């Protein structure tokens, strides 16, 4: 920035103007409107009517909302530990000196670049209770598989497994980057001191990988709160509401039932949850020496 006088402002406007205008119109303005809308009753036909905290009060007394929240937490509790474990295991596996590492890495990563809709459709067919590959494989063990997406007790399990399959490669790549930052000398020194390989994993790998693990934990948590595509394609919240999740209900309330205010209030509850998680992990990361 070396121009002087009015030209200086011209240069600032040139570099920053498009970004500021765009983000104001398509992000900031919607955020503020959404907050405002959450205090109104609006069905898109009549103008919004201010109703104070009524939407939020209604939410707290709405059994469907609590069910939705519980389903979202169920998804998160199943998905996050699983995807972190598989991602870490695959990363450790592919960090070892084995042949064809690039080929394996690609095999595990392909689901990440595939669109969620395609993945959800394939898994919906894999989970078909009668003609699907999964129950047929389970059947060869002499066990009758569950009805998966048609069974309220198993539908969320199916969604979780699908999500873990899709995101393992993503976690793997980030963990691999973290693993490659750990100097090999540490392992050599430990092995000279007589440490076993599992000891190396627990006393060298995991502590030194902690920042990467925390990063993966925080983004997978934040992502899990916002689960949508797979649920929409695989179950649309069913069966019997067993997979209704927050974003899916926000979209349904806003665009199917035209309850704009109620949907906005629900989305701000989602924001609050994500905000708490973000602040928590921000503190943890700063607290680290």
């Amino acid at each position: 920035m070396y121009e002087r006088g009015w030209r200086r402002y011209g240069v600032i406007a040139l570099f920053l103007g498009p970004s500021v205008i765009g983000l104001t119109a398509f992000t900031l303005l919607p955020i503020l409107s959404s907050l405002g809308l959450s205090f109104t009753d609006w069905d898109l036909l009549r103008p919004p009517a201010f109703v104070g905290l009524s939407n939020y009060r209604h939410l707290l007394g709405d059994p469907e909302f609590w069910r939705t929240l519980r389903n979202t937490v169920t998804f998160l509790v199943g998905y996050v530990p699983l995807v972190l474990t598989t991602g870490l295991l695959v990363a450790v596996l592919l960090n070892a000196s084995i042949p064809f590492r690039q080929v394996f890495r690609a095999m595990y990563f392909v689901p990440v670049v595939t669109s969620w809709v395609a993945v959800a459709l394939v898994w919906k067919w894999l989970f078909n209770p009668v003609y699907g590959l999964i129950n047929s494989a389970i059947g060869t063990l002499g066990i009758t598989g569950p009805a998966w997406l048609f069974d309220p007790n198993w539908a969320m399990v199916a969604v979780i497994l699908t999500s873990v399959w899709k995101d393992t490669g993503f976690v793997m790549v980030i963990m691999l980057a973290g693993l490659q930052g750990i100097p090999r000398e540490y392992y050599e020194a430990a092995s000279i001191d007589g440490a076993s390989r599992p000891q190396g994993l627990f006393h060298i790998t995991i502590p030194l990988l902690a920042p990467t693990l925390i990063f993966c934990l925080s983004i997978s948590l934040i992502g899990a709160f916002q689960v949508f595509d797979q649920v929409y394609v695989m179950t649309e919240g069913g069966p019997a509401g067993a997979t209704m999740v927050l974003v899916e209900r926000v979209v349904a309330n806003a665009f199917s039932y035209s309850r704009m205010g109620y949907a906005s209030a629900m989305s701000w509850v989602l924001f609050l949850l994500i905000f708490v998680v973000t602040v928590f992990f921000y503190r943890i990361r700063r607290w680290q020496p």
Partner: protein
Amino acid sequence: MSLPVGIPQGQSVSAVKPAARPAAARRVPWRTIVLTVVALAGGLLMITPFVWALATSLKPRGALLALPPQLVPAEPTLGAYVEVIRRFPFLRVFGNSALVAVATTLGQLVICSMAGYAFARFRFWGRDALFTLYLATLMVPFAVVITPLFIIVTRLGWADTYAGLIVPGMFSAFGTFFMRQFFLSIPKELEEAATIDGAGTLGTFVRIVLPITGPALATLAVLSFMGSWNSFLWPLLIINDRDLMTLPLALSTLQGMYPGQTQWNIVMAGTVMATVPTILVFLLVQRWVIEGVAGSGVKG
């Protein structure tokens, strides 16, 4: 390695060193073998769903209900593909996805790199407050934005247009943050030398700074392209016109197209057609994609 031709290497080794130090001497890494087998088994498990989709797409309708399901179709047919192309403007949909993803990515590269540069190098009143505001918007989930965004874009007359698909995606607080971090990491000296030679800020940016920004731009391009190419919720809301549908949206309608039972061979044929080009492109630019994703993590 000047082994006589015709004598297999293994033989000559065992001839020189008979049984005395078998595995240890040649360091047959049994551990490597086990790990490779495990990696291969896991990798095959990962690609089984793709194989299943491909197998299903090649089956005639009757073979879908065969028990046990065949992983290799007994009488493969391209009938399902013909049906998808006949009933659906698939090439058009493909073009839409490509156009939207390329335009969104180019827009993000230009807008984010310029804004990121301003935040990294310019000094002006309110800069840090503005940057904090950018960071704050990163925490807000898309679900919060989506209702008013839909209304704004509709009021602009952009429902069922390419503009509605492209323009809102061109501005990214994350991209701006990402580019700023990159610009902060490169030394100022080159730019200062250019200024002494009388170049303006824009000229310096284009001629001196951008040429060394390649890796960061590549990372942002990969993330932006993947995000746009696979985006589902926004096109679902803003597009009704079949001629403007993007791939994920078109795929999702395929399953509802057939009343009653979903014809899985046709749905899987559509899925394969949508997925194979994505995978081919990924394999071609694999290094960039993986470094891009890893880079987003390390910097985040």
